[in-house]
């Protein structure tokens, strides 16, 4: 039956992956391009067309300011968040504040909410999955880092809804990975999951016994990941370029976009080579014309530049062990998840820390999606021999007199859970109380994450301390909170599902769901050659368009350039795949040349 299809989705910072139970078999689904993972990149074209995945990534050069990536790092976050501030400096696209202070990216001059952008990725996965199973796919289990806050979870759930998916469960990534690694379930064992992805880091300790996967402790950093390793390389390259050419590339969005890509590639190369070559032609304009960057990055230099980042992941390992009352020796299995755990130095340090090598049976890119599909199977009754018990990653409480945080639920409490505490009034004749809900470990409420508030009115006027108000926190299996306040005397009660006060309200969401439906005419082009051809054509059009702009510098021979472009354009129609790849490269360079010249002479009146 069609309704039983549940798509397991690992919505990653850099790449996303999907899996499903097909004919009783767990299967990682390829996307339409034939790849097992899809870049979490969304590009907004001038004509309103939205491209997602590999194609969007290729367009990053054409539309550096309108191609959005690493959106997961903005989900459910405020612009004022220092972590967002750091990203802003290095991202080629603009990030602004939404009306409520949320960090929203900008593409084609439009502010977009992060769930809306993430929904584009989810929608592509949904459509590609439907193409494989030949049936509509309307339900999903989507994973998030274990250390995601309530607001970040809600934002992810909203993204699913905008994409037309009913999100059956928001599942923690490390827990999902542990479900997927095919451990012997009859054996009692303690598992540690070290999950270093593109943008987030999590460490989770679980106990597996009798088919029950019970999370004991989880901690992490939602803003530490592969992106930071890339940034370390970008910094090396920027410094090098400044030293050699005297040009500062910070703030040059186009150059940053290209540096980012080159850094990512260098990082990947260094996982299996001792040296990576970076070659970026036409990176900037020097006094004597366009300047290129060529640089050899050694693995040693990379290790030195990222040493502090690796160390930053080991402290949470210690914390998690302490909280679960376990020693390193008691850990039986180490699972490494997330693309970053391919980096040899990270594998080496983690093995050194725990005193044993990692479990070999996990594909760091696919385990999480497979786990999500298994959880989907559990919820649909297809998988009967596994059960997951997760925990809430952060403490939850309310603000009380003096601005202190009164904790109702401690972190690492098994969910679902419920807790009630009775509070009273602080002033005589007080007839209403405001319940402010916070998430975090700091003793002062203001130092924690504000989740929302509501007011209980109509309390009987009495001396302070007399009224009794029960506040109940309910956390469901998704880790999402519901709060209820109840006045024992008047029997009045008030309850809310905590909506991230940042996030999208019901009306906004409904509007986005509709508009996403209307725009679902994603180009149905299949075959790699056809896609390359399309990208080449787009690039050629873009170059032609930019050639017609009025501010073309006189130093550029427009006629020669146009002739050159025409030659390339003629070839695009008939070219084979390899030829198309070469053409794409040439077109890219032509565009870069054009832009770097224009930028340099911008505002200079031709003499």
């Amino acid at each position, binding site marked *: 039956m069609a309704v039983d299809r549940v798509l397991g989705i690992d919505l990653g910072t850099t790449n996303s992956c999907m899996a499903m139970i097909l004919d009783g078999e767990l299967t990682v689904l390829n996307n339409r391009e034939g790849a097992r993972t899809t870049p979490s990149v969304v590009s907004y074209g001038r004509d309103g067309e939205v491209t997602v995945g590999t194609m969007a990534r290729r367009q990053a050069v054409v539309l550096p300011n309108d191609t959005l990536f690493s959106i997961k790092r903005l989900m459910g976050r405020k612009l004022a968040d220092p972590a967002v501030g750091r990203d802003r400096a290095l991202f080629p696209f603009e990030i602004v504040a939404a009306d409520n202070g949320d960090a929203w990216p900008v593409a084609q001059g439009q502010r977009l909410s992060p769930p809306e952008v993430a929904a584009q990725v989810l929608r592509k996965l949904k459509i590609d999955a439907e193409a494989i199973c030949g049936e509509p796919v309307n339900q999903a289990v989507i994973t998030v880092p274990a250390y995601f806050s309530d607001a970040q979870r809600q934002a992810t759930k909203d993204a699913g809804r905008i994409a037309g998916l009913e999100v059956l469960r928001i599942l923690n990534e490390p827990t999902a990975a542990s479900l997927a690694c095919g451990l012997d379930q009859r054996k009692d064992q303690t598992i540690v999951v070290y999950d270093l992805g593109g943008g987030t880091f999590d460490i989770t300790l679980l106990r597996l*016994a*009798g*088919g*029950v996967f019970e999370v004991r402790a989880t901690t992490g950093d939602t803003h530490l990941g592969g992106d930071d390793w890339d940034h370390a390389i970008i910094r090396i390259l920027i410094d090098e370029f400044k030293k050699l050419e005297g040009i500062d590339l910070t703030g040059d969005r186009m150059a940053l976009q290209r540096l980012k890509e080159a850094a990512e590639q260098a990082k990947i190369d260094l996982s299996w080579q001792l040296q990576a070559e970076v070659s970026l032609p036409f990176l900037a304009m020097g006094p004597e014309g366009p300047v290129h960057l060529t640089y050899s990055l050694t693995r040693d230099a990379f290790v030195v530049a990222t040493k502090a980042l690796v160390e930053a992941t080991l402290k949470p390992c210690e914390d998690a062990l302490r909280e679960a009352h376990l020693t390193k020796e008691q850990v039986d299995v180490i699972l490494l998840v997330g693309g970053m755990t391919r980096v040899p130095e990270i594998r080496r340090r983690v093995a050194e820390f725990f005193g044993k090598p990692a479990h070999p049976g996990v594909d760091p890119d696919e385990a999480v999606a497979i786990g999500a599909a298994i*959880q989907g199977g*559990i*919820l649909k*009754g297809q998988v*009967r021999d596994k*059960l*997951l*018990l997760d925990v809430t990653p952060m403490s939850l409480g309310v603000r009380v007199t003096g601005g202190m945080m009164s904790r109702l639920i401690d972190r690492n409490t*098994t969910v*679902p*859970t*419920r807790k009630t505490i*009775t509070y009273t009034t602080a002033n005589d004749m007080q007839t209403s109380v405001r319940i402010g809900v916070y998430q975090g470990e700091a003793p002062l409420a203001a130092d924690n994450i504000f989740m929302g508030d509501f007011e209980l009115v109509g309390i009987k006027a009495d001396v302070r301390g007399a009224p009794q108000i029960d506040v109940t926190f309910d956390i*469901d*299996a998704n880790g999402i909170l519901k709060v209820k306040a109840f006045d024992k005397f008047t029997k009045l009660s008030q309850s809310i599902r905590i909506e991230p006060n940042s996030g999208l309200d019901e009306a906004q969401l409904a509007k986005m769901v509709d508009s996403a439906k209307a725009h679902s005419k994603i180009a149905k082009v299949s075959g790699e050659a056809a896609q390359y051809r399309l990208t080449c054509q787009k690039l050629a059009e873009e170059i032609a368009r930019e050639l017609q702009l009025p501010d073309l510098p006189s130093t550029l021979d427009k006629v020669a350039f146009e002739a050159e472009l025409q030659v390339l354009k003629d070839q695009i129609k008939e070219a084979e795949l390899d030829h198309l790849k070469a053409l794409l490269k040439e077109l890219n360079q032509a565009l870069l040349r054009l832009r770097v010249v224009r930028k340099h002479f911008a505002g200079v009146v031709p003499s």
Partner: protein
Amino acid sequence: MPEKNYYEILKVSRNASIEDIEQHYRAVLYQVHPDHNHDDDASVDATIELVEAFRVLSDPKARKLYDFKIMCPMLTEGDIKGVKLLKSKEKKEAEQRFAEGVRAFEAGDLPKAVEAFKVALKLEPDYPEASYDLALLGTQLGNAHFALEVLGRAIKLRADDARLLKLRKSVTETYLNV
């Protein structure tokens, strides 16, 4: 509605081993957890209850304290024995204080309860129910010696009160031999 005790929730006997408890916990979990059943309030409630029961009974110290709690429940007005005729003014007052203490105890306001029981005993030293609850409070506040002192005085006056004797035995076993 009488609450089920943790042993009943986990479907194990009172002297079950930790291995038994773990095994039953997982078996019951499969039966009640919303992921494997109807995702409704009842199964969520049952899971929350089960997880809490397991949390307590799988921790030897917490289990011991829980055992103590179900072995020695608080005494309320309904438990008061003996002749109620010919009450003196002091006795009536003591009974009021006792009721006040029980209410404070139930509301979790332990210091207020301690005060109320102490006043009740001052007004009427031969008041086994008040002595019993005050001793119980002492253990909850972590002062077993205070509890035994209170019980000792009460037993001197009522050497035949089985409740007092049982509480003294439990306090000694639970709190002094750990």
